[in-house]
């Protein structure tokens, strides 16, 4: 309980102790100031039958009574929302695994996606795939978050404003008519490097219909030097497959072993990709020293099955002018 302190009234008999210089002098200015600063009876609401303290007491009591009936003091009502129709193949409480792949510039990383109720929650390397043996890298592990990215596009947008699918289709139809009348002149695609067969097929179809179009592949980090070196050394473009086996000393000039990028081949996977199950941090080098083979591919060094037979095309920005 809060205590209310009051100065005791000045004694009428005996000694009178002054409380300050103003009290001692007791000048009319001081008395005026005192009355202004501490008006007598300020704690009471004068001219009313309720004192200030009574008013607060009453208000707090009414607030407390109001709280008795407040429903918001309970936990909010939550709902369990099951599916209306079952997600195919799922068993409640069990994971469902799908084999999939994450496309990379020079190949793809074979993956197993763990899904719950049709929602992917984890990506792991596919241990049955000979290319990686179940290894993944940090980018693959983090890519699961892309699926739940709040900025992921969910609707059709035109000039920053929500649009409709029909509007988009109308726009594309108009564009197609315009381009086919000019045989694709003025149309250019700026794309990233990939060895997706689907994209190559679509590109072929486009080129057939729109022969004047330009197809430009740009990567900020093309390994132009390595492919030039391979071409200079062997006379033509080819995929490197370095066999580093049972060598006591190895040197790597202008390139680090760790620069062998993911998704290129099994090989790079062995070095670069790490999986907590198979390769822990710091184990790569000892593994190499024990004579594991290390392969490295050249420019198009993805899985060779995907790329073999493809002609060497204009596929970088510098040669696409």
């Amino acid at each position, binding site marked *: 309980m809060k205590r209310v302190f009051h100065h005791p009234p000045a004694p009428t008999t005996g000694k009178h102790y002054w409380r300050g210089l103003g009290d001692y002098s007791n000048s009319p200015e001081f008395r005026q100031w005192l009355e202004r600063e501490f008006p007598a009876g300020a704690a009471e609401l004068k001219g009313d039958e309720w004192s200030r303290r009574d008013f607060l007491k009453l208000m707090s009591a009414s607030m407390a009574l109001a709280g008795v009936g407040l429903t918001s003091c309970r936990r909010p009502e939550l*709902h369990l*929302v*099951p599916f209306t129709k079952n997600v195919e193949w799922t068993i409640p*409480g069990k994971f469902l695994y799908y084999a999939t792949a994450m496309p990379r510039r020079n190949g793809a990383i074979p993956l197993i996606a763990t899904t719950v109720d049709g929602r992917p929650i984890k990506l792991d390397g596919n241990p049955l795939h000979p290319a990686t043996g179940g290894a993944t890298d940090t980018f693959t592990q983090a890519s699961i978050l892309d699926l739940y990215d709040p900025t992921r596009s969910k609707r059709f947008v035109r000039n920053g404003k929500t649009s409709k699918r029909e509007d988009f289709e109308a726009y594309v139809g108009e564009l197609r008519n315009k381009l086919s009348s000019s045989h694709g002149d003025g149309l250019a695609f700026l794309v990233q490097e990939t060895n997706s067969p689907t994209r190559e097929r679509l590109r072929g179809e486009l080129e057939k219909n729109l022969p004047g179009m330009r197809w430009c592949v740009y990567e900020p980090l093309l390994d132009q030097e390595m492919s030039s070196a391979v071409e200079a050394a062997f006379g033509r473009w080819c995929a490197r497959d370095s066999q580093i086996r049972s060598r006591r000393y190895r040197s790597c000039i202008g390139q680090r072993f760790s620069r062998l990028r993911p998704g290129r081949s099994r090989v790079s996977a062995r070095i670069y990709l790490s999986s907590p199950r198979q390769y822990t941090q710091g184990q790569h080098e000892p593994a190499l020293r024990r004579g594991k083979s290390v392969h490295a591919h050249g420019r198009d060094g993805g899985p060779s099955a995907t790329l073999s037979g493809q002609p060497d095309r204009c596929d970088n920005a510098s040669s696409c002018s």
Partner: protein
Amino acid sequence: MAAHSNVPNTQTCMNCHTQVQKDNPKLEPVRASWNTGNPVEWVWIYRTVDYVYYNHAAHVNRGISCFSCHGPVNHMSTVYLAKPHSMAWCLECHRHPENFLRPEDQVFNLDWKPDDVKPAEFVAKYGQPQDAGEDFSKKQKLSQAEIGQTLKEHWNINPPTNCQGCHR
């Protein structure tokens, strides 16, 4: 019995209710869900927080009845929170499971009473505790403590009371 407690989806309900009681007004929310494709919003009464691991199978397959945690659901017109589901309440049973165990074929019988047990049949099936002073099969009735202790020893039940038993 699975570890996971699942709420069946509308499709499962409608497997039968397109034929059985298909005009029952109580099933209107389910039919509405099936027709519109919107899920039924079941009110979540027994909420186990994410940091608690709970395995239904481990309990139900070892003689803990639905009744022990969910109360007399068969007599509730509206399901309510019958037990607190607090940690102290969980531990009450984990420390003394003999007060709650029952034969596994009575787990789903929410009206089961210890008096329903026939001592001779019970002892023939589950035996009796090591240090039981008397022959249980000769008794007229068995108490919950006697039934529970028998089952506890029979199934070798030793519930975890350490933190990581549930907070894994």
